[in-house]
């Protein structure tokens, strides 16, 4: 009996030493993953004024697959209106690099009613999605050149800004979302060749109806947050830094692009923005990207666009 404490100490010491061998590596073990069954991920986003249809069709991949998601060739992608009235079809001949691209003779066009996307690819279960193109946006713009001055802590001088005020339609029977961009047209100062439209950085101010879309740089205006705004989607105000047009490398024209987004497309933009801008956030629950595709990956979204030239 007297030896029990001594034996106990010896036992503790022995266990400690023996088990120290397992101490070298902190790794416990690898988590067993079920075998991944690839599914189709499809993204088709089209607007009424588009001159090309882009369809990305890839197979999902296990996170343990170093190669990642792969494009799927040989798929047939069809867009139909109503009961089986196929409007556009993309096939293997349209597959370029990583996506299917179909150049249109005219624009995509505005369609009333539900459009259906069907994708059939060898070795995969077919997928489908539906979407409704929103009405063409009606926009009333008030533009005030150099209408605002402000100070930013990171700018040494006062910043002069243009003010844009929009009245948009808030349809009573629809979930309205608009993507707003301002573009500037540049020309080569020496050759006078047109260089193309470039996006202008915009900022909003204390307006819950507006979300700055972090990936594309546009503004998303939604009727989800109109509580407290008696005027619905009127008086949407935002700003851009003013150009001095008499200087070199100044734009020669400005335009406002307003895209009405289907609710599904708006959710896809917002969730993608949250996902891609989230990065590693210790305090965040995992993000999910919205999908309306029957496989659960990607998006079929439609939009309609109005362009307003700014004088």
């Amino acid at each position, binding site marked *: 009996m007297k030896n029990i404490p001594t034996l*106990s100490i010896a036992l503790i010491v022995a266990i400690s030493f023996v088990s120290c061998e397992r101490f070298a590596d902190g790794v416990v073990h690898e*988590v067993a993953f079920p075998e991944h069954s690839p599914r189709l991920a499809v993204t088709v986003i089209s607007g009424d004024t588009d001159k090309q249809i882009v369809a990305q069709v890839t197979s999902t991949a296990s996170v343990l697959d170093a190669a990642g998601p792969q494009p799927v060739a040989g798929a047939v992608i069809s867009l139909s209106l109503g009961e089986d009235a196929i409007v556009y079809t993309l096939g293997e001949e349209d597959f370029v690099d990583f996506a299917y691209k179909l150049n249109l003779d005219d624009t995509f066009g505005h369609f009333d009613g539900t459009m259906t996307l069907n994708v059939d690819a060898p070795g995969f279960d077919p997928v489908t999605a539906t979407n409704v193109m929103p009405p063409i946006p009606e926009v009333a713009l008030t533009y005030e050149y150099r209408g605002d001055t402000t100070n930013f802590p990171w700018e040494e001088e006062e910043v002069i800004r243009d003010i844009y005020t929009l009245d948009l339609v808030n349809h009573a029977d629809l979930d309205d979302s608009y993507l707003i961009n301002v573009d500037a047209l540049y020309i080569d100062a020496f050759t006078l060749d047109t260089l193309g439209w470039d996006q202008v950085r915009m900022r909003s101010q204390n307006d819950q109806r507006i979300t700055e879309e972090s990936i594309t740089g*546009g503004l998303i205006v939604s009727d989800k947050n109109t509580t407290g705004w008696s005027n619905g989607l009127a008086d949407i105000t935002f700003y851009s830094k003013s150009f001095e047009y008499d200087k070199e490398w100044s734009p020669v024209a400005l335009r406002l692009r307003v*895209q009405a987004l289907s609710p599904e497309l708006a959710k896809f933009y917002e969730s993608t923005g949250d996902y891609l801008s989230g990065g590693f956030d210790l305090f965040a629950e995992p993000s999910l990207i919205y999908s309306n595709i029957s496989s659960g990956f990607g998006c079929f979204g439609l939009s309609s666009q109005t362009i307003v030239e700014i004088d």
Partner: protein
Amino acid sequence: MIFSLFKGMYKRLFFLFLTVQLLFSVTSFAQTLSGHVQDAVSGEQLLGATVWCEDTKQGVAANIYGFYSLTLPEGKHNIIVTYIGYTPQRFEIDLSMNIKMDINLIAGTKLKEAVVSAESLNKIEEQVQMSKMEIPIDQVKRLPAIGGEVDLLKVLQLLPGVQSGGEGTSGLYVRGGSPDQNLMLLDGVPLYSVNHLFGFFSVFNADAVKNMSITKGGFPARFGGRLSSILEIYMKDGHMKEYHADATVSIIASKLTVEGPIVEDKASFMLSARRTYLDLLIKPLISQANSNNPDVTTDPRYYFYDLNGKLNWRIGPKDRLYLSAFKGEDDFGIASAENYGINSSTLDFGLDWKNEIQALRWNREWSPRLFSNTTLTRSLYNFNTGIEITEQSEDTLSMAALYNSGIEDFSGRIDFDFAPNARHYIKFGANWTNHTFSPGATSLELNFGDTPALDTLLGPADIKSDEAFLYVEDEFELSERLKLNLGVHASILMVQDTSYNSIQPRAALNYRLPGGYAFKASFARMAQYVNLLTNEGLGLPTDLWVPSTARIRPQQSWQVAMGVAKTFGDIEVSLEGYYKGMEGLLSYKEGASFLFSLDTDWEDQVTQGIGNAYGTELLVQKKYGRTTGWIGYTLSWSNRKFDDINSGNWYPYTYDRRHDMSFVVTHDFTDKWTGSAVWLYGTGRALTLSESSFSAYIPDGTGEGIYTFSAEVPSEKNAFRMSPYHRLDLSLTRTKFLENGTRHLIFSVYNAYNNLNPFFAQTDEDDNGNPVIREYGIFPIIPSVAWRFSF
């Protein structure tokens, strides 16, 4: 407003009480034996001690202030008074009139006496209350502890139905509930954060505590405000006759407890302090490291401390005052400085959190049958994190950001104990609490030289709310075989011009079956008006306490439990099954992050849902003798459902644990040597992992090109399981009795067979560069030594 809302119910309760009074006033020819049960040496009140009349087979348990009241027929009676760890006292009393008698018990018991005591009221099959456990603090102190630092909450995690969070953490998950659903009361005051060192230690200093109990179900009506458990911890009152000190030095912290009389047998005090010294120990090492490159210095810091204090004053034979206080704080940070030529930069990052409580309590014996306790309390929890950066070149640029959140409560409460006769014990009372929530504000400051460029405060405003409740409960014998505890708890919350009220019936019964078995059942409806927003995977002190608001409805639950209990010799066995339904549960939405999310209201980032939890718990416990301990086993399920999470489908709660087992044993080898061992096993924690990835695109900013990306897809919520958790801890204590005190040398080993239990999982690469998911553990085998001296 509160009175208008309670008006109808208040009247009904009053008439009920009046009726009960009239009913019991007819118990003539009965006299009352009342007083306090206390430690014969220290005068410490022995809450829960039982006073049992052997003739009438009736008894009563002393309340949490040691007060008892036993009404019996006139005449001579044999009384036995018992308390775990104390020698039972038996005496004869002639009750020809009301008698007030303080009963002194002597610490220390022998097996034979313990068996005698086991015949009395504290046998598990005699108690109406189910789903409640008490662990003597002396036993807690003898169990193995990480780094030699005893942790009360980690001992509670060894009980069936109570689970831990991550490896080494003090979080409690009771019967499938979340940590915010535990009402943690220190001397009756709620504590909102009980974590030190990111949850590896709790704020409860075992040397300052005299009693601890946890109730998991069958909640009596006097408790409310949380869905899953009530944890009651009471500080020592302080020795009434002599000065005593207890000092412990371990590899983690040192602590000192001092207690003694201010006026002998009239007033006493207890003071206890604890502090870690990791920061002091590593300071020379840091200085040495910094001396190698004087241009770059790094200075990490971490410490925690806590202070417990209590004053206890017997004002007169019927009145007693207590003043208790607690303060605990953690401070973590890192400061670095870099000099390069005439330029320099400094960075200071800090994270600190603190708890404070104060309580003033007045006990009054209005009559031998009526006792009251009036309490005024304050509770504060505050969390701060911030960063300050300074760049010194030709110009000076400084930037500071500070995030702050917290909660502060002021509360008033009155409780009455009324014992009209030996068959009834009635409790009733009321409580009012004013909460002030600060749900996360960020201050930003930017200076160029002496010129302030930005000085602003962002974030939601404080939210104030008032919470009140009334309760009444009666524990009574309907027949020799059937005991009941029936009660009602009525509560109300007033916040943002909105009010929520809740009537919560409570019922518990004990029916004695043939063969000495007891069948027990209980029902309790609960409501909760405060919520903890937490990232389930981390449990950091950044967790945010928020109230129910006009938009966020209260959490509610109902729980039904049934079980059988019996004592075999000196071994208690209980088997319980339970089902708990929950609604109004609060969680972050998928993708939501509160910290530094300056432009988003926290209410926009949360979602409410429902949950359930059910299971079976087995407890076999030996409380007396040279060998004590218990075996606990839990088979349980816990699920959640939120519209905005997991596509609205049910999913297992993160701490859903199918099997949970614990073996706890303490053995006195000799008077000098004591050993203990703990082995536990639990099903692995549920977790969500990225399962697959896909590619997609969105049009670019010009609308003329596209931007492609790949995204990972999480599995179904909590679809994966970490490896099972199992661990063995051992401890051996050598006690030496000296002339002027007692010395203990405590050797302990945490995780004796070095099973690296998983703490987190992440994507990694194997030797061939292929991605794999791996689990990592953080605590290997940890031997430790602690030294304790008391006189």
